[in-house]
């Protein structure tokens, strides 16, 4: 086991990793930017090192400064959290070449999963459907129409350089497709200086269901069941739950097996998530693989009882997985609401500011993961996540009831938050019936 780990991240995930270290008796070293000076979690570490000004490029994304801090603090491993350098293969390589273990997948698996084309190839080898589409960028509208006739309408015209849902248009027939290609190319040129567009089948009424996997360095790989993350706005997840209320047990089993096949085929090690789109018939397609611990990992921790961050650290230290697949069970139902500093009544405008009064719920079935306290400044430089509010109860109905109760107990002053949005969703009949899809939030709310 490592004796000292550097947490190359900030905010709630830094605190999460620090908590895992403390429970395992491992020393924790934190790095922080000037914007995070005074953060409460910095009092919990054995050493805290300021690595730069607020700008991520000069702090949390700065490999040289982080490695320098790791050497000065004499750590034997680095945990990258999520975001920032978590899926940066070059960073993982630099760590290992400096004799510092990187708590995450091996570099090769990380690179293969990060490459969309390679990931699709691995999926096909693992007998997993991928979303049909053009092989590369479209030459012109005629080619688009040919591909569309191949894969079937409706289709999505997507900008190659786009991301996070930007630069996408739906087309239902040849005429609207021609227009979409032309417009898409101009928009892409203007927004990304890259006019390449490609085509993908648009799967209507789709649900986003992902599977947590965990693999050690001894060839053992298991899944820890699924999380349903269908409720999204502009491809940002709002709510996650497990088990998924909208897939059958049969689909669930097939999905989870597919995720393990994908991880094995890629030679994956560590914790990772395989994301799928599931259509109303239960057919599922690979979306992508996230080679890191995810924001919503506590949902899985609650239903399976497995501490994923501790397992990440153990696996990286060379330990074998302490359980077999059949020992991993889903118990009860868990839901997570992401509470962000955004004004949900004004176009979800980010609401930076300083938190004043800060009361979060507790009691039976409630878990709160937050790095904030009164006086915490939500700065514009980083994401706006204030807290993850989770509930875990025996049934989905009971979980929703507890979440409603818990949301009503939230009292956060100083910044606008998405608590009102979550309260609306928890009271919505579509959500309660599990009748939502990835476009639902934008359509209905």
């Amino acid at each position, binding site marked *: 086991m490592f004796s000292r780990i550097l947490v190359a991240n900030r905010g709630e995930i830094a605190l999460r990793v620090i908590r895992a270290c403390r429970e395992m008796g491992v020393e924790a070293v934190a790095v922080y930017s000037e914007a995070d000076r005074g953060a409460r979690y*910095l009092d919990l570490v054995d050493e*805290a090192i300021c*690595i730069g000004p607020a700008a991520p490029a000069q*702090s949390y994304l700065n490999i040289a400064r982080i490695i*320098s801090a790791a050497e000065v603090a004499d750590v034997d491993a680095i945990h990258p959290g999520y975001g920032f350098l978590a899926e940066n293969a070059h960073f993982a390589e630099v760590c290992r070449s*400096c004799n510092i273990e990187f708590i995450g997948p091996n570099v090769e698996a990380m690179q293969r999963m990060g490459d969309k084309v390679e990931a699709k190839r691995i999926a096909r080898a693992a007998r997993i459907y991928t979303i049909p589409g053009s092989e590369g960028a479209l030459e012109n509208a005629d080619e688009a129409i040919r591909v569309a006739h191949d894969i079937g309408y409706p289709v999505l015209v997507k900008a190659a350089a786009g991301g996070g849902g930007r630069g996408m248009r739906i087309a239902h027939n040849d005429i609207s497709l021609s227009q979409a290609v032309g417009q898409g190319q101009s928009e892409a040129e203007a927004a990304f200086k890259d006019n390449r567009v490609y085509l993908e089948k648009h799967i209507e009424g789709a649900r986003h269901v992902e599977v947590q996997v965990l693999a050690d360095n001894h060839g053992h790989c298991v899944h820890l069941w699924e999380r349903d993350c269908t409720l999204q706005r502009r491809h940002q997840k709002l709510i996650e739950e497990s088990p998924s209320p909208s897939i059958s047990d049969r689909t669930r089993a097939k999905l989870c097996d597919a995720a393990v096949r994908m991880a094995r085929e890629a030679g994956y090690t560590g914790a990772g998530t395989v994301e799928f789109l599931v259509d109303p018939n239960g057919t599922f397609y690979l979306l992508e693989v996230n080679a890191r611990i995810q924001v919503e990992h506590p949902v899985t921790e609650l239903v399976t009882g497995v501490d994923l961050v501790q397992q990440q650290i153990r696996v990286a230290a060379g330990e074998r997985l302490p359980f077999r697949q059949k020992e991993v069970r889903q118990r009860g139902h868990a839901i997570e609401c992401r509470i962000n500093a955004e004004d949900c009544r004004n176009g979800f405008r980010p609401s930076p500011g300083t938190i004043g009064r800060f009361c979060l719920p507790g009691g039976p079935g409630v878990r709160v993961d937050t790095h904030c306290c009164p006086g915490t400044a939500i700065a514009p430089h980083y994401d706006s996540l204030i807290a993850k509010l989770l509930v875990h109860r025996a049934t989905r109905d009971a979980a929703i009831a507890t979440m409603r109760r818990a949301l009503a107990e939230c009292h956060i002053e100083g910044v606008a938050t998405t608590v009102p949005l979550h309260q609306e969703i928890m009271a919505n009949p579509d959500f309660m019936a599990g009748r939502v899809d990835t476009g639902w939030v934008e359509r209905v709310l």
Partner: protein
Amino acid sequence: MADASEPEAEAPREAPVDMETIRRLLDLMSEHGLAELEIEREDMAVRLRKAGAGPQPPLVAAVAPAVTPQGGAAGQTAAAQEGGEAEPAEEALPTITSPMVGTFYAASSPEADPCVQVGDHVAEDTIVCVIEAMKVFNEIRAETSGTIEKVLVGNAEAVEFGQPLFVVRPG
């Protein structure tokens, strides 16, 4: 008491504080980086405070290198507390701070003399120390001119970004 034949001294009661003095005091504050200044003389009492003035920057002897392992408490909290205690007696002089994380070396090689010592005058491009980060030795320049008042870090000590290294008396 003034003799009736001599010109009467300026009566401070009519103009309790003259603007020229205030302006000179303000210049003095800016020159020395003071946030607050209080003067009491027989003829006047003045207290000037810059808007938004918080705790003064941590001072000379009080700053501990933020990376010294201490059971539980992060070094940065300790520095802020000690800075608060040392403050009243001294003026706040500007400091040269570390632009990176690494190991501080006072000299460019083990046998050489330190780059600067207390009392040395530095110009903006004077090399004041070397910081080693990831096996690369970086020469650190003063970026200010003045006299080295105090060296805050020991040789081969770990330093973090923004950590004060030297106190410089400007001029």
